[in-house]
């Protein structure tokens, strides 16, 4: 049985909240690598929700998850407290991020996507890479893991949409400057965040011809390859995000399709949220 052993609020602004949980999950704690995720159900009648494994503690057999309380199910999770049990958790799922010494790497994290950048950053640093990290959030109070990422980065930038912290603007603005500065191009760019952000990063690095990986947040049901609900078009092929990904070459992703596919349940989401049962 999975139990919550720690809970903290990392960011809060108007209605939005980003929460960190440490929970017991032996298999995942022992096996998960950066880039992998788990599926979690808060209750028996709940949805299976995919969440990135942010950190693992092999000794305590716990994992760290960071969730933005956006929809019904993530808010339900956010309402859980230390000592509470969660109905189900399975993982680790998906492929791990390829970690090697590339040389110089640009890491871009937007919003709660920063949570996924963090384990990757640590692993890439350990593998000897020089890290340029660019974090972005709507506003200062929703920026997470700033100190943790600063500590492993060689160059570090923060942007906020409203200018309340770091530079006013978007992560892609900083990326553009770096790519256009005339210094040697980074070997690889790794970006996780909202789809519009990843899409703009992809367009920018494609023009500069820099290899770019993104981690996609397609809608999932099982997370184990059995439904195909998470399919995305990569180049001319259809792939399942949960088993073929979640990371793909950003330049091959059909962003328009992914954006639309992720909208198919908005009506139901509105309905269940309006009932206000969390």
């Amino acid at each position: 049985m999975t139990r919550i052993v720690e809970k903290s609020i990392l960011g809060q602004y108007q209605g939005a909240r980003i929460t960190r949980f440490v929970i017991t999950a032996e298999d995942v704690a022992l096996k998960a690598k950066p880039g992998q995720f788990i599926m979690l159900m808060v209750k028996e009648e709940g949805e299976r929700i995919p969440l990135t494994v942010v950190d693992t503690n092999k000794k305590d057999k716990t994992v760290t998850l960071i969730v933005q309380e956006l929809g019904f199910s993530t808010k339900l999770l956010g309402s859980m407290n230390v000592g509470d049990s969660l109905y189900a958790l399975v993982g680790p799922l998906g492929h791990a991020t390829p970690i090697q010494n590339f040389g110089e790497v640009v890491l871009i994290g937007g919003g709660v996507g920063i949570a996924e950048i963090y384990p990757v950053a640590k692993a890439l640093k350990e593998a000897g890479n020089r890290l340029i990290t660019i974090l972005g959030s709507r506003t200062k109070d929703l920026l997470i893991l700033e100190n943790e990422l600063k500590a492993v980065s060689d160059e570090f930038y923060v942007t906020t949409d409203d200018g309340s912290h770091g530079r006013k603007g978007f992560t892609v603005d900083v990326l553009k400057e770096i790519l256009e500065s005339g210094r040697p191009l980074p070997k690889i760019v790794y970006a996780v965040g909202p789809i519009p952000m990843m899409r703009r990063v992809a367009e920018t690095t494609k023009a500069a011809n820099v290899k770019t990986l993104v981690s996609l947040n397609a809608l999932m049901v099982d997370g184990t390859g059995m439904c195909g609900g998470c399919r995305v078009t990569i180049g001319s092929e259809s792939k399942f995000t949960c088993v073929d990904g979640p990371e793909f070459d950003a330049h091959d992703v059909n962003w328009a399709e992914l954006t639309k596919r992720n909208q198919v349940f908005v009506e139901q989401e509105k309905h269940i949220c309006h009932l206000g049962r969390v």
Partner: protein
Amino acid sequence: MRKEPVKVREVEAEKRVAGFDEVVLGYSEEEALTEASRCLQCKNPVCINGCPVGINIKGFIHHITQKDYKGAYFTIREKNNFPSICGRVCPAEYQCRKACILTRKGSPFASDNSINIHFLERFTGQMGINNGWMVPSETSEDLSKFKVAVVGSGPAGLCCAGELARKGIQVTIFESLHKTGGVLRYGIPPFRLPHSILDFEIDYLKKIGVVFKPNSIIGKGKTLQELKNEGFDAIFLGLGAGIPTFLGIPGENLGNITSANEFLTRANLMSAFKFPDYHTPVNIGRHVIVVGGGNTAMDAARVALRLQKMRGIPLDTTLVYRRSEVEMPARRLEIAHAKEEGLKLKFLVKPEEFIGDANGLVQKLKCVACELGEPDASGRRRPVEIKGSDFELDCDLAVVAIGLKANAILPKVTPELTTDKNGDVIVDPQTMETSIKNVFAGGDIVGGEGTVIEAMGMAKRAAQGIINRLLAPTSGTNLENTKGVGYANKC
């Protein structure tokens, strides 16, 4: 004078599409007795050859006629662990009933006049449940020291676990989903197989000592080697054929086009038909198209009709199939039920392209008409496109149910496990042992997409293989691809 077959009681179509309750109500004792009395008790009971696991059909029906229901139950249980499940989901009209002497020779499936063996089996299974009859365990000291891991809790895994546990072996079943039962839970809708029946059989296994570990994805969490290191003496892989196939036509990734697996998993496993009390959503359309001709397609179509009804949408669900009705691999009973419930069927139609609206949602399905040509490898006549016959169907939700392939998660991380070009695991057909010693496999992961009873048949063989292996650890294996053994029902 020969008696008429006893019709089984069913909930009337209008009422049953309003929910997910069971459609077929089964025989009463009296009805079962009458139907059983129709059995000719042939000297040479050919029906038995039609059963993939060789149940002594003549014998169990005779017991029924004598009102010896316990005798009937144990006769079935000699070969089949789950009569109450198989009595509901077995495609009897292609198996025992087709072989029954009362079926007209050369008929592609059972004649109506053949004995309703499956309903008698179901009746007997229900008696077993009602009376709590348990097949006595035959534990032995030799075997009770062994531990076996079963990976996957579908028909094959459950069956293998039951066989081993009855001998006193300590069995643990690992299941990747949060609920056990595999396709019996996520695929087959409760109106065909109520979850209470499945739960009864699973509880029975728990009673005889089987330990269930849901949320355990072997290959991603623990590896086979780690299971061995933990002290499991043998492993059975009942991984199933869990990966949906798509048509590969333009527009297939538009919104509201799902695999049957996704549609059924949302509805059955996640209980999306009870949204918002259950939180997983499922979309339904005004014009639903289901592509395919197998049982999964029928299940999806019947779920679609129910969702339309439950949400107050006028029933409009159409099944398109590229061959004609006789070639449909689906059960005849399901086809009949689906028609009664309002399913429209369009035959000799091949989907060519999905067309979407500005929001990226499916709007139309472009098709081409076909005619039947020469028989293909399956022996059924091949659909041939008629040039220039393109037409469009309204479609705001499409369910693709054209087949499944092997789940590759475990084989991918286990290179020593030999698979064929379809990704199916290769086994010694006698023992069901894989290329890895002490690792066995059965069900769809070996034979490709097949039926519940075929999977159980293989699992039983594997259980015997495991027992022999545990008792004689050094004997050799003979690897061979068993593809094609009894698995002919393809779309």
